[in-house]
């Protein structure tokens, strides 16, 4: 009995098991084959190229997430500066236009002191910025890029939406643990905004589930011969606006509002802790952009590139995600901030109405069996 279990376990972590389900890239296949023959390196290469591990480490997981984070923070500042007739980050790596500014800032955060002030609830204050990475990173496992997916399940979409919905709860907890006036105001705003955008957001996702008749993301991508944004543009609009609200971008940058309440729930953080909490919104933005590209832009669909094999959908999906993120970053430079009451009125009246219409369109398409 035990021997069988041990045998099963060994089989599960064997190189052959990984090689059964590997990312195939015809362009560098000879190199991979050679590497696989080397004893230890071969095992590591097989592990990395094992599809679930590839999803976790390369795309949409860790590596892409880090790259996107470093890029989008720089890009947002640069684009906003350009539109506002300024220069933006420039001096660090000047010939590349200061592209590693975010990395430099991150390094600086590392060497700054993390101050835990007297009134803070110390355990929560320190733990929550780290624990928040569970709901931030977990959804990445369920998002497919072609055949590359961490966990394949028919309930992927509800799982992702549920986990993403947990993030504001952590932010509210962070604000509570900070125990200061600005954090209090910011937390209240975050809580209000959470309720306001969550319902239209979920309704738009429900509309898309109705359109495709399934919640399995791989199936959703396969069914999108016509992209979802054309099938149900109303749902796409609602999803986009609630993404802006959820990631607190302008014009809905109400909980953070650095000019008014100095980053709201995160006001008391310093050093690397601030670096961690500051990137939460960007990570959430990345996940929601991935979700948007899966639901509305056809995910990894695109004309295949034979040389790249399994990497082609990855590239298409990455480009679509970046397009959504750039659109989100672009809004920062042209919009002013809504007041809390204006944003709440907008989401509880107009957005709710439009999302109901989106669900109706989704139901009609479900009955008509379009997708």
């Amino acid at each position, binding site marked *: 009995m035990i021997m069988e279990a041990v045998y099963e376990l060994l089989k599960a972590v064997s190189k052959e098991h990984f090689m059964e389900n590997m990312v195939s890239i015809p362009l560098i296949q000879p190199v991979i084959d050679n590497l696989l023959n080397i004893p230890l390196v071969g095992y590591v290469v097989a592990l990395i190229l094992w599809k679930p591990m590839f999803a976790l480490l390369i795309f949409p997981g860790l590596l892409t997430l880090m790259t996107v984070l470093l890029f989008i923070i720089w890009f947002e500042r640069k684009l906003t500066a350009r*539109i506002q007739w300024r220069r933006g980050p420039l001096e660090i790596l000047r010939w590349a236009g200061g592209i590693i500014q975010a990395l430099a800032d991150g390094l600086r955060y590392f060497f700054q002191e993390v101050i835990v002030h007297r009134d803070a609830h110390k355990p929560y204050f320190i733990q929550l910025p780290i624990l928040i990475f569970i709901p931030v990173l977990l959804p990445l496992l369920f998002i497919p890029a072609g055949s590359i997916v961490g966990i394949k399940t028919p309930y992927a979409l509800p799982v992702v939406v549920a986990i993403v919905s947990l993030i504001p709860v952590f932010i509210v907890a962070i604000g509570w643990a900070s125990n200061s006036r600005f954090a209090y105001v910011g937390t209240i705003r975050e809580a209000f905004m959470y309720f306001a955008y969550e319902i239209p957001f979920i309704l738009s996702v429900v509309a898309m589930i109705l359109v495709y008749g399934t919640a399995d993301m791989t199936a959703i991508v396969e069914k999108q011969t016509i992209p979802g944004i054309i099938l149900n543009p109303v749902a796409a609009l609602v999803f986009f606006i609630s993404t802006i609200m959820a990631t607190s971008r302008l014009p809905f940058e109400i909980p953070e509002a650095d000019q008014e309440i100095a980053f709201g729930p995160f006001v008391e953080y310093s050093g690397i802790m601030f670096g961690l909490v500051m990137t939460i919104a960007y990570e959430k933005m990345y996940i929601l952009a991935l979700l948007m590209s899966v639901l509305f832009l056809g995910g990894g669909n695109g004309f295949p590139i034979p040389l790249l094999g399994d990497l082609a959908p990855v590239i298409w999906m990455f480009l679509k995600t970046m397009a959504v993120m750039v659109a989100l970053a672009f809004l920062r*430079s042209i919009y002013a901030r809504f007041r809390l009451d204006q944003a709440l009125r907008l989401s509880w009246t107009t957005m709710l109405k439009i999302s109901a219409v989106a669900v109706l369109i989704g139901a009609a398409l479900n009955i008509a069996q379009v997708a």
Partner: protein
Amino acid sequence: MIKIKVRKPDMVENIKLHLDALLTGVKEAVKPGTITIEYPRERRWLPDSFRGYILFTPENCISCFQCSFVCPANAILMKKSENNRYYPSIDYAKCIFCHFCVDSCPGSALRQTKIHDVVYIDLDEMFCPTENMINPPEIVREDEYTVEYLMDLDIILKRVKERDDLIPEVKPVEIIKEYSSCYEPDSCLACGICVSSCPNEAISITSLDGEKRLKIDADRCTGCGICVKECPVQILKLVKG
């Protein structure tokens, strides 16, 4: 109380306004106008009369104290130098760069430069003695371009690949030779204030028949006018020679 009616745009107009904002953003993202000068690498073109760091030429100075008198910030201190003359020294912690001193200088001993980026370590160092005012401060020129703002309807930046000379040539002013003279010798009190105030020892009091008389050496007089200012009965004035 007057209530201001806020005009509420209808939906079509609203969408139009949003699109307009988005289009403006895209336009600026593609082809941005810019009014930023990358300062150490580019310098803004400045007119020759720019009020910057002040340079001093001791040869032209007649120790007239005009700069010190006129300074509204009281930043100029006249210090006695080795040759018994008084020369100005500027405290840049007080200076407001009005350049009244430069304008008031009769011999153009003080002159303006375009240097506006001098760094001091502390407040004490900001006091600039006369020796340091003769030569311009050490400048590290990183700039390759000179940028000029052309204020037409829109602001246009004109970049020229050349270095602006920070120390402009000052036309030498024609110095009108003046000297002090006493026009009412009978009123003279012979108090000797003019004698002690003269920086060039051009005035002396001579006793003639038991009557004290003022004697002004026109060759030694620089026409600084200090004695004119100091005379208690105001019988001295400057005359053109």
